[in-house]
């Protein structure tokens, strides 16, 4: 029952993509990745710290490139130009053509700037990037990103770091009805049932970071997220029973020896 997620030429067995931020240390991060079953991990691009670089263990050294595909993001970019620069630097780092493109609107909400995201997607897709575009849940924007060349569209479930879950499943459904590229929910997921619910909508995958990293027990939550992702996917594929007001017995009415 192999059921990989495919994005352009990439193919992954696990539909859960996880981040590398907010962990106590690399060991915790690696233990969570292992427990999550993820094959794709997001990273950010930042200035080398001129004061401390030589001492630190670098994230690049920590990641087993045989096991994990790196998905660099453009977190922290608020303009199209900064996003383009960040993307190009990430490619120069030898991380390949995959890109989690995000252009944020402001530091207060960390919500995406949709038109700038469309514009950056158009340019970077043109430069050969495999763009996974983080966006809001507006179906019109999702379609525009697809038309601009996004390899996958990643609407948020809720604001980054909020843990509120999938605030508007209806919008995700509308996006799915019209999509021709994979839809991955990115951001807002707070706990396992959020992942299961999201996957049951029929999306292709879930990307999350804070939900694992800021749980009381991140490793256990990573395992929870892994199972939830599988659960939601399989439930979607299995086709759920119809809901109705009430009621249908699971045990047969025939053969009862009792009177009533």
């Amino acid at each position: 029952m192999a059921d990989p997620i495919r994005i352009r030429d990439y193919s992954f067995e696990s539909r859960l993509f996880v981040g590398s931020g907010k962990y106590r240390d690399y060991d915790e991060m690696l233990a969570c990745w292992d427990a999550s079953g993820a094959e794709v991990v997001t990273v950010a691009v930042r200035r080398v710290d001129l004061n401390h670089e030589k001492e630190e263990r670098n994230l690049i050294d920590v990641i087993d490139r045989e096991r994990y595909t790196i998905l660099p993001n453009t977190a922290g970019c608020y303009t199209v130009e900064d996003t383009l620069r960040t993307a190009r630097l990430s490619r120069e780092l030898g991380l390949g053509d995959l890109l989690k493109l995000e252009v944020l609107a402001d530091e207060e909400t960390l919500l995406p700037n949709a038109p700038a995201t469309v514009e950056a997607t158009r340019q970077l897709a043109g430069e050969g990037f495999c763009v996974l575009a983080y966006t809001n849940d507006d179906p019109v924007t999702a379609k525009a990103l697809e038309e601009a060349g996004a390899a996958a569209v990643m609407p948020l479930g809720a604001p980054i770091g909020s843990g509120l879950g999938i605030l508007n499943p209806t919008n995700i459904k509308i996006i799915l009805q019209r999509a021709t590229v994979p839809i991955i929910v990115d951001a807002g997921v707070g706990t396992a049932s959020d992942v299961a619910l999201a996957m049951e909508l029929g999306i292709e995958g879930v990307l999350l970071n804070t939900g694992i990293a800021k749980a009381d027990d991140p490793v256990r939550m990573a395992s929870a997220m892994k199972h939830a992702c599988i659960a939601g996917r399989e439930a979607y594929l299995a086709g759920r029973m119809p809901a109705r007001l009430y009621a249908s017995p699971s045990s047969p009415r025939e053969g009862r020896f009792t009177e009533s």
Partner: protein
Amino acid sequence: MQITLNGTPRQVAPNTTLAELIDEITQDRTRVAVERNRAIAPRAQWDETVVADGDEIEVVTLVGGG
């Protein structure tokens, strides 16, 4: 000669190459990518690229992110 390296003014000797500058701040060239005056400075050209006065150089690496 003064450049701006990662947003901070820095004195460099004339005829310093990008490769020399990078070696000053990291022990593993493969960990970093470089932008010079807002354009990518390809790794293959670091040895031959001489830093100019007033250059804005960004040297970046990976960090944790979501």
